[in-house]
C-alpha cells in the first residue's frame, strides 16, 4: 500500500519504468484524471449545497446524511482518480494493457440508486400530503 502511495508522488520512480511515450498519451491520461477530479469536486459541491440550501427534511438528519454521503463519495472519487492515473501511466510506459476498473460502474449505480431513493421519498411525501 505504501509502495502504491509513493508511486503517486514520485516522478522519478514513474519515469524510471518503461519508455517515455508520445507526450499526447500522457496529456490525455492527465485530462482523464482531471475530468474525474472535477466529478469528485462536483459531488463535494453537491454535498455542501445539500447541507446549506435544503430545508430540514421530514426524516431526522436525512439532509446531513445525504450531504456526508455525497462528500465522502467525492473524496473517494478523487483518491481513486489519482490511483488510476498512476497505474494507467505505468501501463502506457510499459506497453501493457490499460488497467480495467469496476469503479465507473459502481459509481453510476450508487448515483442511480441514490436518485431513485430520493424520488421515492419525494413521492411518498407528496402522496402523504395529498
Amino acid at each position, binding site marked *: 500500500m505504501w509502495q502504491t502511495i509513493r508511486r503517486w508522488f514520485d516522478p522519478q520512480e514513474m519515469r524510471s519504468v518503461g519508455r517515455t511515450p508520445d507526450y499526447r498519451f500522457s496529456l490525455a491520461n492527465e485530462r482523464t484524471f482531471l475530468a474525474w477530479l472535477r466529478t469528485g469536486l462536483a459531488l463535494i459541491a453537491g454535498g455542501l449545497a445539500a447541507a446549506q440550501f435544503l430545508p430540514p427534511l421530514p426524516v431526522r438528519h436525512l439532509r446531513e446524511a445525504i450531504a456526508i454521503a455525497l462528500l465522502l463519495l467525492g473524496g473517494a472519487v478523487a483518491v481513486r482518480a489519482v490511483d488510476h492515473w*498512476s497505474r494507467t501511466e505505468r501501463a502506457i510506459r510499459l506497453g501493457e494493457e490499460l488497467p480495467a476498473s469496476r469503479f465507473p460502474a459502481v459509481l453510476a449505480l450508487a448515483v442511480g440508486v441514490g436518485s431513485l431513493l430520493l424520488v421515492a421519498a419525494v413521492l411518498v411525501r407528496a402522496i402523504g400530503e395529498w
Partner: protein
Amino acid sequence: MTGDGGLQAERTRLAWRRTLLALTVVTVLTVRQAVTGGPTGVLLAGVAVLGWGATLALCWGRATRGALRTGTRPVPLTALATAGYALLGALLVLRGMW
C-alpha cells in the same frame, strides 16, 4: 513531428483551468459552511482558503504554461487537496448537527 500544433497541450491547460475553477467553487461553499460556527469555524474557513491558495500556486504553471512531462506532483497533490476538502466538509456538516 506530432503535427497537432500544440492542441493537446492547450486542451490540457484548459482542463486544469476548469478544475481549478471547480476547486474555487468548492472553497467558497466550504467557507460559507464554516463561518456559521464561531471562532473554530473561522479557523477552519482559514484552513480552506489556505489550501485553495496553495493548490492554485502549485498548479499555476500547469494551467498557464502546461507541461510535457509525466509523473508530476501537481496531479497527486490536487487529488489530495480534493480528498481533504471532502473530509473537511464532512467534519463541518457533522459539527453543524450539534
